[in-house]
């Protein structure tokens, strides 16, 4: 019962804020609505028992990515105070494409009576390390550093490369 109330509140918030992101004319307002969407998605993560991921979502998306967006908006408008106005082009075609996507995905979502369950269990050799984790965070951390260590290291190198690239691209011309 409580989950239903929370789900409906969050779903309405997410959809309304997402519509705000794609239809508002003031770019800063779009960015703030995106912040609302990201908070709503963090709430959905909490509902699904992914509490660590919810904290990570707020910490990375809302704090870092949204601030990048806000800085980009502020740095790319004339500092004299004219606000950036965003206009939408090709609205009917865009609507058609979006509704087409939506139709396909809803068809896939409703066409199966039930989705097949995962086949991995705690007795798999690579997952046995998870046998006595106390909570979701410990499970996440343990799995990340045992089974998914290679993607983890790759993500670290990727972040380093992205950071260096962003700094070089955005530097003032010497």
């Amino acid at each position, binding site marked *: 019962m409580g*989950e*239903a109330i929370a*789900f409906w509140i969050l779903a309405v918030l997410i*959809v309304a804020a997402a519509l705000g*992101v*794609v239809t508002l004319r003031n770019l800063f307002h779009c*960015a703030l609505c*995106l912040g609302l*969407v*990201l908070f709503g998605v963090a709430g*959905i*993560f909490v*509902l*699904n028992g*992914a509490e*660590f991921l919810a904290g*990570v*979502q707020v910490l990375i*998306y809302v704090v*870092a*990515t949204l601030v*990048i*967006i806000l800085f*980009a*908006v502020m*740095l*790319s408008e004339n500092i004299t105070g004219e606000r950036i106005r*965003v206009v*939408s*082009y*090709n*609205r009917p075609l*865009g*609507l058609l494409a*979006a*509704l087409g*996507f*939506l139709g396909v*995905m*809803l068809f896939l*979502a409703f066409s199966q009576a039930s*989705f097949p369950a*995962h086949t991995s*269990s*705690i007795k798999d050799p690579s997952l046995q390390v*998870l046998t006595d*984790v106390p909570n979701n965070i410990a*499970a*996440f951390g343990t*799995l*990340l550093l045992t089974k998914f260590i290679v*993607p983890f290291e790759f*993500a670290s190198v990727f972040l380093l490369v*992205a*950071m260096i*690239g962003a700094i070089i*691209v*955005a530097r*003032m*011309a010497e």
Partner: protein
Amino acid sequence: MSITLTHYLVLSAILFAIGVYGVLTRRNAIALLMGVELMLNAVNINLVAMNRFLQPDWRIVTGQIFAGFIIVLAAAEAAVGFALVIAIYRNLDRINVDEVNILKW
């Protein structure tokens, strides 16, 4: 009413479709990248919901780890993307993706 996997799939589908609409209709580069962020978040909702409903053991969080990697990579992509937008604005004084076409002959 109990919330099933279908509820989360529909929510994620709607969010994804809104992101597609945003990417296709907006010509401002920053607004376009915001639509991409919406699509990535829709995929994350999908992954986490499927991990919860289709994996009966709460300790196996493979879906959440996948979503975590998507968050990390999306942040890196946003950083580089917006750095590019700032660089383009600094050099061309406009960020309408239809007009940034100086490489076209």
